[in-house]
């Protein structure tokens, strides 16, 4: 469209809807520069991109998928074998799901490290946290829809943990499953969730999330991280947007390449979507059954708890712990008072590292890394696995700590140290996981108390 015609159309619309302020806003929207790399600012966009791919591929899949006892599995088999490019659409949907979550987690951790959550952007963080929950819900509900063996058992295991919720646990379990056990009724409910409830929620919350960002602008770097010569921000339209588009194009290309090279995923337990056999509720559970990779840490944590603890049921305590951890994560903007004052707050960077180490160790252990010799049958060796995973976690932890120490000049390592201590005690010294955790938490609390006393001027927590 030529400039002149474009101008005429805009004028026509402007007369009716008063678009000028909007256009001016878009023209002036900027991405903050003069601090850390712009790389981090792209991650939200890539998450949105993969989500959009999910919507498109999901709608296409909906045209052939039929939920039902005799049709769920069969329609997907038909789709992937007889429908032209059906294999492509399905594989794109599966790959993009995982890539979206990877991107989401990277986005979440980068906003944590860069403290984008500090006031006035607390609700952006909270809405993002909700989106994280919604994304996990998508993954969990979508997993069951092919109605194959793997999905059936993974869902049985996954929904089982809901029993641990106090008071309403059993009721919640039955409502989720549409009965006592996982059955086709469970699939119908998950289908409704996956195709209507969660998409509407996601779009609503994404809308809010983006609205907040537009209203407040993207988070600038912290004062102490800004360069001496503050540069003007990069224009969003067209500069940043073009870069965004380029990155999305590269993501799409990477996605279809992955689809071609590994149509069923990397074939790691928890990241494998070969259709396999149809679900048979009467068959015994699959050896080596595992939920999807992003749930593995909860699954492993549940396994570490004994049947009873402090007079409560083990799974209940485990779920309570997970809830506490997630809620803490959700309210980080209110906990980090130093960042609120634009002061360096390495404690919360440390929290992020500790979270990664904690979740990473549990995930590796859930995969029995180091516990199975190649081709070995039978149960994996938990102790050997704990050792191997401990080494990996220690290695990663050491590397990250070194980088933080040297590059970012952080000096606060209490939480990541506690995580590494737990991993060391459990993996290398054979202490029980929970006992090691209790010891590490206790020592961390002591360390924090000591640190607080040492810096009385800073009345707020470090």
């Amino acid at each position, binding site marked *: 469209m030529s400039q002149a015609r474009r101008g005429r159309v805009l004028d026509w619309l402007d007369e009716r809807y008063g678009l000028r302020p909007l256009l001016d806003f878009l023209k002036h929207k900027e991405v903050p520069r003069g601090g850390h790399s712009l790389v981090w600012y792209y991650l939200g966009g890539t998450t949105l991109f993969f989500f959009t791919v999910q919507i498109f591929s999901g709608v*296409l899949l909906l045209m052939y998928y039929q939920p039902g006892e005799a049709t769920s599995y069969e329609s997907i088999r038909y789709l992937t074998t007889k*429908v032209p490019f059906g294999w492509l*659409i399905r594989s794109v949907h599966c790959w993009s799901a995982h890539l979206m979550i990877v991107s989401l987690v990277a986005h979440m951790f980068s906003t944590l490290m860069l403290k984008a959550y500090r006031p006035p952007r607390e609700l952006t963080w909270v809405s993002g946290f909700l989106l994280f929950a919604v994304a996990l819900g998508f993954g969990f509900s979508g997993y069951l829809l092919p109605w194959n063996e793997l999905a059936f058992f993974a869902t049985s295991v996954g929904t089982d943990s809901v029993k641990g919720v106090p008071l309403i646990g059993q009721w919640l379990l039955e409502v989720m499953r549409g009965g006592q056990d996982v059955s086709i009724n469970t699939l119908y409910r998950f289908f409704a969730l996956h195709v209507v409830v969660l998409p509407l929620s996601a779009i609503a919350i994404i809308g809010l999330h983006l609205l907040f960002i537009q209203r407040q602008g993207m988070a600038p770097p912290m004062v102490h991280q800004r360069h001496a010569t503050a540069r003007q921000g990069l224009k969003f339209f067209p500069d940043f947007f073009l870069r965004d588009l380029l990155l999305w194009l590269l993501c799409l290309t990477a996605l279809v390449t992955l689809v071609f090279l590994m149509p069923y995923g990397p074939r790691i337990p928890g990241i494998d979507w070969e259709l396999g056999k149809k679900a048979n509720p009467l068959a015994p559970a699959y050896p080596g059954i595992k939920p999807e990779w992003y749930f593995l840490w909860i699954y492993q944590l549940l396994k570490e708890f004994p049947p009873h603890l402090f007079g409560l049921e083990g799974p209940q305590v485990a779920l309570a712990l997970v809830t506490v951890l997630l809620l803490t994560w959700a309210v980080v903007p209110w906990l980090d008072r130093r960042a609120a004052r634009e002061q360096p707050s390495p404690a919360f960077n440390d929290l992020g590292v500790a979270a990664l180490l904690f979740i990473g160790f549990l995930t590796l252990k859930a995969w029995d890394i180091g516990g199975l010799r190649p081709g070995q049958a039978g149960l994996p060796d938990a102790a050997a696995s704990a050792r191997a995973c401990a080494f990996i976690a220690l290695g990663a932890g050491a590397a990250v700590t070194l980088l933080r120490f040297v590059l970012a000049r952080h000096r606060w390592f209490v939480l990541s140290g506690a995580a590494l201590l737990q991993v060391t005690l459990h993996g290398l010294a054979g202490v029980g996981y929970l006992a090691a955790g209790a010891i590490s938490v206790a020592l961390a609390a002591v360390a924090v108390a000591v640190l607080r006393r040492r810096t009385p001027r800073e009345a707020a927590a470090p």
Partner: protein
Amino acid sequence: MTAPDRTEPPPPTRRGFIDWLIGLGFTGWFASVAYPVVRYLAPLSSSAGGAVRLSAEDLAKLDRGQFVIVRSGEARVIVLQVDGALRALDARCTHEGCTVQFVPGERVVWCACHNGRFDLEGRVLAGPPPRPLGKWIAAREADGGVVVTRGKA
């Protein structure tokens, strides 16, 4: 307001070339995405229906003088018995595709949607249908059953 752009436009050839390149690239890219999606959405051609054997129920209806509609692949076929002779025609009216019916009293095949009328050979007698109904072949088997096969075009 920002300072105005430079008054002289940048060399048109280079800027135009890049924009043109974007246009070309976008077209190519869009085609590579649209092609699989379009093929995916195109309905699968079901195999042209083969011979259809009438069920016992349908045979009974024929013997009572009623007409029967059977499916052969995606096609619908109307089978009727008049004066002992079996006839089979395409049941899809050539006007807008409604399913026709047989009116025994008038020995006419009639389409209720827009009052189109066909004779027993499928030729148009009255109404808006532009073309005659396609012919099918209904043959009586040795065991008394009836098999319907596609007639010549």
